[in-house]
């Protein structure tokens, strides 16, 4: 039997509240300087986007045949990042995984902001952004309708459903915690939390309906983890383009999404726990388990790379083989090997239990994973377009300053929103931690009896 994890269980419910609510006290200058820095970058990126809307997509590096490049790479990257949040909040909830309680709120918050960032990219990628609603069916004078056989239309439905359901699930979990914050706050914050808590009092009637709805929402969100990134992968797999047209794309993308997402959760949580002083709540036990998920999904992703290469060789299609030859040894071959190093080789270090709980090492490894996963998407999306059926159409691609600045701006947008959230709303679920403590006390008692 597994021993009880090394987390402080002597904490009372009140200690948990204090530790979490302490984080929400007014922040210092350094915090506001960081938030200001992030939103300044967002402002600069917005200026570049305005320029692109005014001048057209010619200001980007997009040229035939590479019409999907950094923007779509970023879209897939951010949708992928989002997935781990739903995995931790919904799937692990259904499995009653104990370590999820302390990390799930932060992961879920990351999901919301990552989808909000991803959702911008299809809009940014549109030449005429003011016609974005053409993807949705609506009654119109000429009886024109979107083609539901197109994966881009599926994507519009999948991503907007994902954002809505994640936001509702997140809001539901927040309500009891905000009610706690309401009791402890003073001044304008008390009014703010009173409105957000919507009169929650934790009566048996409220908990009864809440528990049922939370369980069912988790059940609904679980297939979304699998479906949304599958649909994103079909944006590519449904096209007959070599390098894209593959049946393994759906599971391959889903595993990659969870891999990059959990790595991003670790990248965010390690500095956050230190800055916010919540080392007693987010312990080595939590990071050890998160690192195991990264390791597992890294192995799945490595297997997908091998399968992809094998199928290309085994199927014997010369054009597909040429595309893969270019991917491995062409002008952008270095990107492929950076990706293999970051996604397949470096995560193997996580087999060592010591490295899994060494915060510095873990942080560096997860940053490598994030870099590797960004390159993976770029290699698949833009790389496959450079070498197509006709050698006469082959071309390269170089991102313009507009694309680079908008990419930097999107990272700043994500980090800025996440930083704002972590100070104003409970970043750790007090309700679920209190529930978890009951289990931990029992586990500790069992260990004592066994000893």
């Amino acid at each position: 039997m597994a021993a009880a994890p090394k987390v402080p269980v002597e904490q009372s419910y009140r200690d948990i509240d204090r530790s979490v609510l302490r984080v929400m006290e007014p922040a210092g200058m350094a915090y506001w300087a960081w938030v200001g820095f992030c939103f300044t970058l967002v402002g600069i990126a917005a200026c570049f986007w305005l320029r692109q809307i005014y001048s057209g997509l010619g200001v980007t590096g997009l040229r035939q045949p590479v019409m999907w490049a950094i923007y779509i790479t970023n879209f897939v990257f951010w949708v992928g990042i989002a997935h781990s949040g739903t995995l931790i909040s919904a799937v692990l909830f259904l499995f009653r995984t104990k370590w999820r309680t302390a990390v799930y709120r932060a992961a879920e918050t990351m999901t919301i902001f990552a989808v909000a960032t991803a959702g911008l990219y299809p809009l940014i990628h549109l030449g005429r952004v003011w016609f974005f609603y053409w993807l949705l069916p609506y009654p119109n004078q000429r009886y024109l309708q979107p083609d539901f056989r197109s994966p881009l239309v599926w994507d519009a439905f999948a991503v907007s459903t994902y954002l809505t359901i994640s936001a509702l699930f997140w809001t539901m979990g927040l309500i009891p915690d905000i009610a706690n914050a309401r009791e402890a706050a003073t001044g304008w914050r008390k009014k703010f939390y009173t409105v957000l808590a919507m009169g929650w009092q934790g009566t048996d009637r409220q908990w009864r309906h809440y528990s049922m709805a939370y369980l069912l929402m988790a059940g609904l969100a679980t297939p979304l983890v699998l479906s949304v990134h599958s649909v994103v992968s079909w944006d590519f797999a449904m096209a007959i383009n070599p390098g894209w047209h593959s049946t393994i794309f759906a599971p391959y993308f889903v595993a990659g999404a969870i891999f990059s997402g959990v790595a991003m959760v670790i990248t965010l949580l390690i500095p956050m726990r230190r800055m916010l002083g919540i080392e007693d709540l987010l312990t080595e036990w939590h990071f050890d388990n998160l690192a195991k998920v990264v390791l597992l999904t890294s192995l799945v992703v490595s297997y997908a790379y091998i399968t992809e290469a094998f199928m290309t060789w085994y199927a014997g299609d010369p054009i597909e083989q040429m595309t893969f030859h270019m991917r491995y040894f062409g002008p952008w071959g270095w990107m492929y090997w950076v990706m293999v190093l970051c996604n397949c080789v470096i995560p193997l270090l996580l087999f060592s239990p010591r490295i899994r709980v060494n915060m510095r090492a873990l942080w560096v490894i997860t940053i490598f994973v994030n870099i590797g996963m960004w390159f993976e998407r770029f290699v698949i999306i833009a790389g496959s377009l450079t070498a197509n059926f006709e050698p006469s159409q082959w071309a390269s691609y170089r991102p313009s300053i507009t694309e680079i600045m908008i990419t930097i701006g999107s990272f700043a947008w994500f980090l800025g929103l996440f930083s704002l959230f972590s100070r104003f709303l409970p970043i750790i679920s007090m309700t679920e931690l209190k529930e978890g403590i009951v289990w931990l006390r029992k586990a500790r008692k069992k260990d004592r009896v066994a000893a």
Partner: protein
Amino acid sequence: MSTVEIISSFGDDAQCANAIEELRAAKVGDFNTFAPFPSHRIEHAIGKKKSPVRWMVLGGGISGILTGLAITIGTTYEWRLNAGGKPLLSWPPFIVICFELMVLLGGISGFLGVLMMSGIPAIEIAPGYDGRFGEDRFGLVVRCEETEAERVESMLKESGAEEVVREGI
């Protein structure tokens, strides 16, 4: 004869659940509880039926599938586009839309259902509510006839209540 409210607080959900079971066995008063987290012990002790929110989610999910079918089939016939010689009603891709709308409408109905059934947004505070009940205490508020009050109070104390306060209505 007047009615009183007896507000008691417990440090543990098991004690609170015991008190509820005893009150139910003695058939005295009606009661309301407050808890910092959803406690299965308290839920079992109260013994109410499962929440009807599940039927709302089911209804939302089914209406999502029907909406999905309606918009995919309906718009296909409104805009008869021949794509690559495929049949007009190529139903496999429609599953994706139906699935997404099932999740979307099921989730929205679940969320609205929990708000509606739990009576939130609430402007009034339930009698006996205390901020500590969101933090580390379990509250049990019993409404009964004044003649029964002493009996209820002693039952609550025997079950381990830390505080018992009587308030007139």
